């Protein structure tokens, strides 16, 4: 790459001005305050968008009084010519000269977002240019005084390591995600292993075999019993059959007890009618008895009265003086005796009549008592009739149920008799078979339930095993993912190491070569990596601090370092040195001029100076003179 023209507009101390450059050495020569460093700054700003002097604001680079300044550079890269302009307000424009035409075509125009494109296309990187191409005033001491971390950042930027480290950081974050996922899956795996139970396959096979045997046995028994239907139904019907039979027997006994001497209900009802007829005919007994009782009472009264009169008449007859004891009148004995005889006769007649009525009364009372007994028996018999009717109804119903059950049972188990009555001895064998079948059925049902439970547990285990396998697959995958990210990180580390070796080792050799060319061979074993670009010197087996070198030695070493680094990084093809002989003694100044001339043999070199010895020492240089007050274009 060759720089061809510097173009300025309201930039620094320049209003509108351009300066053509040539191959070889370009010497910008002029007194102080004539704008030499401004030109160096303009080139650096046009290429990088940043001022060469750190901490200087962009707007400060514009001409005093101007709102904005512009620095432009024409350069040739290969066969193509380009124009790059930057304003102090951040505008960028890249133009390319059309082939066979003098017109410029705008490639892009815009803000600083174009810097990445410029870096990729032309390697206009701030760090590259600052470290390997430009030498500004006071840079050596500033570089030496830099903190290791700053130099490391510069080194990383120069080697492109900063971008690699950013990529590595992304991989580290990815590895972190993978680790988290891996831990989650491992935890899940552990929880599944703990809860996994033993396999039930053997137990299931054992139960299935046993069940099969029992079912065969059951079928065999069913065949013996002549059954093909549901055994449960047969068992239930048999039980119902027995229950009905017992109930019927109970009712028959109750009916026999209720009849109590009667042949049947009709006989009982005939007797009831007879009793009803008897009681109806004996309806006036109570009235007759009451009349008799009144008659007996009246006769008793008459007899008592007659007895008292007889006793009184007897007393009159038996009196001592023949006079009435009450009125003291004389008593007529014969008259009184006649009256007494009549009275006693009447009393005897009443007595006889009383005895006859008493006998009739006793008979009537016996009849009445017999009638009451009949009535009670009538009521009892009527109750029995009702009871017998109920029993008959129940018996009829039970008989129907019994017949139904017996019929169904007979269809299933023909050996069971269908007629009513107690279970006969002939039914004992089927009942025994039914009992055996019932027990078998119970065991079969129990085993079936057990089998269902085992199969459910087995299904759960199978599901867990499947999930375990799936989780294992996920674990394997996440392991590969995590290791892939680790590999990616390690790969970046190795790439960084490889880049450092690829770039820094040749740079160290280049420094050595330049030092030999400049007769500064007493320095040896330069290590750029350990101190992050600071040339670590090992002189005759002992480490030397660069700060302890003389000023001119530091200047020469640093220039050699810059040239070597530039070549190792892929030299852009030009160097820009701002007043490189400042503070150098005559010998070192001469060495510096010699260094510039040798550098110019391979590269374009732009040098600023106000030293007449430099001008005299570079007689073939393209001279650009600056004066304190610049003229317009």
């Amino acid at each position, binding site marked *: 790459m060759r720089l061809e023209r510097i173009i300025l507009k309201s930039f620094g101390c320049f209003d509108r001005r351009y300066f053509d450059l040539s191959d070889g050495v370009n010497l910008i020569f002029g007194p102080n305050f004539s704008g030499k460093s401004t030109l160096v700054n303009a080139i650096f700003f046009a290429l990088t968008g940043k001022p060469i002097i750190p901490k200087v604001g962009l707007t400060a680079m514009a001409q005093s009084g101007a709102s904005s300044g512009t620095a432009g550079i024409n350069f040739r890269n290969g066969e193509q010519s380009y124009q790059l302009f930057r304003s102090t307000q951040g505008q960028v424009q890249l133009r390319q000269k059309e082939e066979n035409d003098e017109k410029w075509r705008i490639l892009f125009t815009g803000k600083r977002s174009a810097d*990445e494109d410029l870096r*990729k296309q032309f*390697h206009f990187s701030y760090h590259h240019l600052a470290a390997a191409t430009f030498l500004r005033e006071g840079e050596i001491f500033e570089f030496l005084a830099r903190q290791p971390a700053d130099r490391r950042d510069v080194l990383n930027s*120069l*080697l*492109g390591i900063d*971008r*690699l480290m*950013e*990529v590595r*950081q*992304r*991989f580290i*974050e*990815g590895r972190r*995600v*993978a680790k988290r996922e891996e831990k989650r899956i491992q935890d899940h795996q552990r929880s599944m292993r703990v809860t996994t139970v033993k396999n039930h396959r053997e137990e299931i096979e054992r139960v299935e075999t046993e069940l099969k045997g029992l079912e065969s046995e059951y079928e065999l028994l069913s065949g013996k019993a002549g059954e093909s239907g549901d055994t449960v139904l047969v068992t239930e019907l048999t039980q119902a059959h027995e229950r009905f039979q017992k109930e019927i027997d109970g009712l028959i006994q109750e009916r026999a007890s209720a009849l109590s001497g009667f042949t049947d209900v009709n006989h009982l009802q005939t007797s009831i009618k007879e009793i009803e007829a008897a009681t109806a005919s004996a309806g006036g007994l109570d009235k007759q008895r009451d009349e008799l009782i009144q008659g007996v009472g009246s006769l008793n009264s008459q007899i008592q009265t007659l007895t008292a009169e007889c006793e009184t008449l007897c007393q009159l007859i038996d009196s001592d003086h023949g006079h009435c004891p009450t009125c003291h009148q004389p008593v007529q004995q014969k008259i009184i005796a006649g009256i007494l005889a009549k009275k006693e006769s009447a009393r005897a007649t009443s007595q006889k009549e009383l005895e006859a009525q008493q006998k009739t009364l006793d008979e009537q009372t016996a009849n009445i008592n017999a009638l009451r007994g009949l009535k009670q028996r009538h009521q009892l018999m009527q109750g029995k009739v009702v009871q017998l009717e109920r029993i008959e109804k129940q018996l009829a119903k039970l008989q129907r149920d019994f017949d139904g059950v017996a019929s169904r049972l007979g269809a299933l188990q023909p050996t069971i008799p269908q007629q009513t009555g107690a279970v006969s001895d002939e039914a004992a064998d089927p009942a025994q078979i039914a009992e055996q079948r019932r027990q078998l059925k119970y065991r079969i049902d129990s085993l079936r339930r057990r089998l269902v439970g085992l199969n459910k547990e087995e299904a759960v285990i199978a599901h867990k095993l499947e999930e375990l396998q799936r989780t294992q697959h996920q674990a394997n*995958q*996440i*392991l*590969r*993912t995590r*290791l*892939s*990210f*680790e*590999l*990616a990180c*390690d*790969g*970046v580390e*190795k*790439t960084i190491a*490889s*880049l450092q070796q*690829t*770039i820094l080792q040749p740079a160290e050799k280049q420094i050595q070569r330049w030092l030999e060319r400049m007769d500064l061979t007493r320095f040896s074993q330069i290590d750029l990596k350990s101190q992050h670009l600071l040339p670590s010197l090992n002189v005759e087996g002992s480490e030397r601090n660069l700060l302890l070198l003389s000023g001119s030695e530091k200047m020469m070493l640093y220039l050699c370092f810059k040239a070597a680094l530039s070549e*190792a*990084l*892929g030299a852009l093809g030009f160097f820009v040195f701002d007043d490189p002989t400042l503070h150098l003694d005559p010998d070192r100044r001469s060495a510096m001029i010699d260094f510039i001339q040798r550098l110019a043999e391979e590269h374009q070199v732009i040098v600023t100076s106000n030293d007449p010895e430099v001008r005299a020492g570079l007689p073939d240089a393209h001279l650009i003179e600056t004066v304190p007050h610049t003229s317009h274009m």
Partner: protein
Amino acid sequence: MPSTLENELGEIYEREVEKLIESESKYQSVLGASEVSAVVQAFRFALEHGVDKVTVQMLYDMIDDSSGD
């Protein structure tokens, strides 16, 4: 970085990854060609598009998909 190296960075990375696979048993026993290919592809992708535009999830998906094969 030299322009020549800039273009070769992907190849340098691939070489270094292959060296690691051959030398490190932990990678050798688990990772195969598809994983190595995915790692290199993810590296090139990140470098080409810039980490500002490439998220961790993008890289994770690229690498995880290859691990699931």
